[in-house]
């Protein structure tokens, strides 16, 4: 028998053996993920009680999770479940709990306080959700008092909205040569600034839709060497508002991982725009916007959906400027809860500490997405 055949036979045998062993004697975690049994343990300590709650949330066992709460009289199972997952369809609806962290804050014989951070896996990356939990000792076990957050109820009302939207009829394939198409929207880069960071080169800027029609926009940047050859080409994927209404400005950030600004002679910028059907609504107000300096610098505020329809996925984009008005950085944050009408929803955008020291002012915009679209 040839040596290669022997090796293939060996690996095949080992694989089959491992599969059999894993099936007959699975580890507890595998059993839990297969739904056969859970990782629930005795709630004899505050940490164990919160861990159990975390596992029940992870497996969507809302009945058990609710049954383990100490303050069931204050909220229903429906309210508990939707307090965790959101009442309206949003990023959280389609996410799963990746992991959680527990940090003890206070403990005595009969009560304890812990910080419970749930890390949700969403389509746009991990989204942490931090809750401060109070626990009570009941007999030998500990039970969680779930912090009840009041869901603001908007009084029944009619919100008149004058819908304004643009539709586009483009040139068809059967049209004769010479039949003009409608021009793409005119957009302009009004600011551009490259920044060298430890993890690469970043090209920041702002893009203005100077036309009278909405535009789908993107920006591509190419780093060029001394001889004019391209080092790398990247485009603004996430840190840009792709839909720009007339005279609207969006920041953009283009990342070149592992690139060095020292080897860059020039940067070729290519803004792209195309006509797109769009609606002028919803209008989102950014209220109580604060820049919080310090070791854990952040931009915080509240989003208020001024329209009468739910906005499912909001993204806050922030442009940070120094004292001379020069661009310092572009930050963004998806809000993993939907924005109900007329209801403030808080956001917090972390800012790198070294950059936060330079920040003098900021400008925020909100990009939104609604399932079914705004018609």
């Amino acid at each position, binding site marked *: 028998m040839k040596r290669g055949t022997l090796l293939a036979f060996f690996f095949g045998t080992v694989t089959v053996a491992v599969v059999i062993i894993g099936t007959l004697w699975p580890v507890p975690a595998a059993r839990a993920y297969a739904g056969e049994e859970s990782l629930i343990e005795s709630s004899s300590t505050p940490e164990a009680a919160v861990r159990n709650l975390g596992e029940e949330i992870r497996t969507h066992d809302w009945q058990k999770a609710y049954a383990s709460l100490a303050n069931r009289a204050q909220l229903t199972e429906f309210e508990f479940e939707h307090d965790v997952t959101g009442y309206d369809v949003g990023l959280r609806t389609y996410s799963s709990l990746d992991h959680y962290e527990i940090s003890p804050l206070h403990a005595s014989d009969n009560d304890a306080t812990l910080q419970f951070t749930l890390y949700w896996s969403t389509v746009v990356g991990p989204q942490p959700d931090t809750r401060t939990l109070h626990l009570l000792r009941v007999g030998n076990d500990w039970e969680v008092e779930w912090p009840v957050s009041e869901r603001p109820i908007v009084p029944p009302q009619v919100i008149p909205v*004058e819908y304004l939207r643009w539709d586009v009829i483009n040139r068809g394939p059967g049209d004769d*040569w010479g039949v003009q198409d409608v021009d793409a929207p005119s957009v302009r880069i009004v600011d551009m600034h490259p920044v060298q960071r430890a993890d690469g080169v970043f090209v920041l800027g702002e893009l203005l839709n100077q036309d009278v029609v*909405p535009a789908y926009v993107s920006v591509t940047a190419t780093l060029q060497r001394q001889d004019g050859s391209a080092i790398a080409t990247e485009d603004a994927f996430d840190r840009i508002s792709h839909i720009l209404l007339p005279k609207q400005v969006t920041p953009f950030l283009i990342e070149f991982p592992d690139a060095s600004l020292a080897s860059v002679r020039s940067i070729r910028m290519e803004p792209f725009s195309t006509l797109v059907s769009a609606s002028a609504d919803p209008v989102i107000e950014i209220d109580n916007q604060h820049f919080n300096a310090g070791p854990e610098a952040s931009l915080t505020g509240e989003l208020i959906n001024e329209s009468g329809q739910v906005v499912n996925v909001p993204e806050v984009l922030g442009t940070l400027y120094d004292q001379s008005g020069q661009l310092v950085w572009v930050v963004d944050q998806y809000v993993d809860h939907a924005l109900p009408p007329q209801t403030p929803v808080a956001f917090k955008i972390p800012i790198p500490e070294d950059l936060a020291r330079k920040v003098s002012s900021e400008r925020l915009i909100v990009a939104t997405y609604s399932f079914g679209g705004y018609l």
Partner: protein
Amino acid sequence: MKAGVVIVLGALALAAVRETPAQDGSLNLPKSVAAGSAFSIPTSGSGKAALYIIGLGQVLKRYVQLGETVYFPEGSLHDAGSYVVILAPAGAGASAAETDAFDVTPVPTPARLSFLAKPSRLPVSLHDGITGAAYVFDAYGNLIVTPMPVSFQLSGPSGSTQKSDAVTKAGAAWVEMDSTGKQGIDQFVVSAGGISSTRVIRQVPGDPCTLKMSAQASGQKLQLKTDPVLDCSGNAVLDGTIVTFSEAYDGGQSTVDVPLKHGIAAVSIPAHHGATLSVACGIVLGNQIRWEQ
């Protein structure tokens, strides 16, 4: 593909001609023929021959009796260009093939205009902002290259009209025109030889000339509203244009992007004593208000 087939056929024909034994036969071609028109080719000599007419887009083949005139009905040749004619006498002892050429010219009557008008949308009061280029074709799609008068006319919604006449050069004529000071849909018409083609040019307002807002208390909130937003020619800036209201107060800020509706932008934001209110639209800054109530 079509041209390739024609070339191959032509080459085969020429090859066949070389191998044909010589026989008397000659051609008497017209110098040029209008596309699509009937024409004839008189031949001389005796015996039978094959007549090939080979152009870039078309090949005709006829078996002819030498000494007779070969008739081609209307529409036989419709692509303008230079055509090679080969008369290849057939049979043993035939003489060498005779070749000649003639031109098929476009019909001098325009049947279709291709009109490129750019841009489809532009700001008002822009000098030479509109360009129109017209290409004149005959009924068979041939570009008419003989000089031809072409008239361009741009009509605004207010009835204003700009006219410009041009003569085609190598089949094309073009003009540049100014956009008017009034926004709206313009009709851009080109006409030549009794036919016309129309394009739509949309003249849109420019950037806001002045941006002014007013503030009014409404309970715990402030009602901010702009005056009608106009460009420097007095046109109302289009609805949907984003106006940004900002309120800076002690330690905080509120911002909201509002689209113009019915020519104004309005929003209600929380009132803060001592707040500075500002408004902007694109790169145009408006007035500031300090709210002391």
